């Protein structure tokens, strides 16, 4: 097995009086795309920002470690972090409309990243910025480099953001819902571009999303978070073929898909499946956070949060029923 590029072990993040990420562990191999999936507020963005030590001022990393290329990012000094961010790990944010500095030309903004991390001249940085704009598919990069962000459309701005993110050829790109603010056709273009660049520069991508279609098309592995815990982790193929965790099954069942249309008409006429209840019911739950909403729950689920159990096919699941089917049978028999 390869040495993982990023290894997160038992990372917990809390706000005052509240824990929002309860010890998550996952790893990203060099060059792969890992999707972090979950509904709003499940802690996926907080987890990603904790990796980069960019948490809001009141949030704290409570425990755990984040090993990136041999450095523990949780304990690294701010100086070391500033050397890593933008150079070896970079971030693509959700909102391309507001993520660029409105008063600086885009070429200058890209050039600044390069000059921050590499000892190159202003002119060389400008040339690199123009090359990068060309690389991300912006026509007439020379002219466009001198323009301001408000001269670009949303999709174009996200391309500029990608150019900035890959400017120093990082090992890892964290993309926080990079296409949520874009319309669907642009989404596909932007994600294709990101995937091309990933291959070209041999980068790994942590793709944070709530869009299962995006996961299916662009991710190698998927990690599902629910209420601050990882509930399932699997390579994309088994993830969609045999979802193990009841929450994942619920998510896949709630999606609009062709199978549903084949069964009973169009999504506009057919009622979509839903997961009953809301994520708020996980608060104060001593056992499995999904137990209050779980259709298959047994009394043992309420005892303690299940740990993430590895499965023979390379996936892992945090559900006592899915991990050990005999438990469910025993409960049913008894």
């Amino acid at each position, binding site marked *: 097995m390869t040495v993982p590029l990023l290894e997160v072990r038992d990372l917990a993040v809390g706000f005052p009086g509240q824990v929002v990420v309860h010890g998550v562990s996952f790893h990203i191999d060099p060059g792969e795309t890992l999707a972090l999936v979950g509904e709003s507020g499940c802690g996926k963005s907080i987890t990603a920002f904790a990796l980069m030590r960019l948490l809001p001022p009141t949030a704290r990393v409570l425990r755990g470690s984040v090993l990136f290329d041999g450095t523990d990012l949780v304990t690294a000094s701010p100086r070391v972090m500033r050397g890593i*961010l*933008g150079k070896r790990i970079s971030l693509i*944010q959700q909102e391309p409309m507001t993520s660029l*500095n409105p008063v600086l030309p885009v070429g200058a903004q890209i050039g600044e990243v390069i000059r*921050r991390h590499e000892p190159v001249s202003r002119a060389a940085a400008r040339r690199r910025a123009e090359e990068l704009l060309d690389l991300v598919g912006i026509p007439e990069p020379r002219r466009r480099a001198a323009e301001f962000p*408000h*001269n670009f459309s949303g999709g174009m701005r996200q391309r500029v953001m990608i150019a900035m993110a890959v400017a120093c050829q990082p090992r890892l790109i964290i993309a926080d819902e990079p296409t949520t603010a874009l319309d669907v056709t642009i989404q596909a273009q932007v994600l294709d571009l990101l995937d091309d660049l990933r291959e070209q520069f041999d980068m790994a991508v942590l793709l944070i999303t709530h869009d299962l279609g995006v996961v299916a098309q662009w991710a190698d592995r998927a990690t599902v978070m629910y209420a601050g815990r990882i509930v399932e982790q699997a390579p994309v193929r088994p993830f969609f073929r045999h979802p193990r965790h009841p929450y994942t099954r619920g998510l896949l069942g709630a999606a609009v898909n062709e199978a549903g249309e084949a069964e009973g008409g169009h999504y506009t006429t057919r009622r979509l499946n839903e997961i009953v209840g809301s994520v708020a019911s996980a608060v104060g739950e001593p056992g499995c956070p999904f137990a209050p909403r779980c259709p298959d729950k047994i009394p043992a689920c309420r005892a303690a949060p299940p740990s993430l159990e590895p499965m023979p096919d390379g996936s892992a699941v945090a559900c006592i029923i899915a991990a050990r089917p005999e438990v469910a049978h025993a409960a049913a028999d008894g």
Partner: protein
Amino acid sequence: MSALADEHSPIALRGPPAQRRHRLLRASLRNPSFLIGLVILLVVIGVALTADRLFPGDPQDMVGTPALWPGQDAEFLLGTDSLGRDVASGLAHGARVSLLVGFSAAAIGLVIGTLIGAVSGYCGGWADTLLVRLTELFQTVPTFLLVIVIVAIGQPSAPVIALAIGVSAWPTVARLVRAQFRSLREAEFIAAARSLGYGAPRIIIHEILPNALAPIIVTGSLMVANAILTEAGLSFLNMGDPNLISWGSMIGDGRPLLRTAWFLCALPGGAIALTVLSLNLVGDGLNDLLNPRSGAV
């Protein structure tokens, strides 16, 4: 606003920065109040720069018959004051003092205010609390009194006066800059800047300051105007630099003759009003021109 700018962009922003500078020039030509302000200001600056050449010799010298009305003697176009000093020469040399004190005081105030406001707004926490209290402390003291106290403690020389005005004027800038920084620091592009490994000084100077510049420039031009007024007030009260002639001291000297020779007060007063007006117009115009989202560029 941005839609408007987008509409203009293909024509307005084509080409390298040098060409854009030409467009900035052309846009400023379409802004009449800015132009008027600029012309007046440039005339005042020109007179100040060439005062030695236009009116050689010390403006404090008594050169003619006292209290000549303007036009009475071709040699003294704007007349003479009660001691026979040339009013035109005094106005020209006074422009020098007014502008010098005005601009340096504003510069001092801007630097202190921007620094304190930026640190306070960006860092937050106890640093912010401390600096806000300090700012409020300075704001509770009446500005003019503070200037008088500082000048009275030091000597009434132009540098001390400029420093005094600057030190008393910074709280306004600090509050403005702090407010700007507080809102901008939460902006997504600042989060993006942090994610690129930029340190606090770079974020403050490179990322946030350019965004906060427009209101700072406008305030700066108003501060120059205020500093000129304050300096004139000081000189009027005979607390100005006694070795330099200033518009304020000219008004003060002309006051006893207000009923017989009102022009002694009116001319320097008009000069002050005109200069202050021009600075205000220029400040407003710059606000429109420098904002890249205003669509004027």
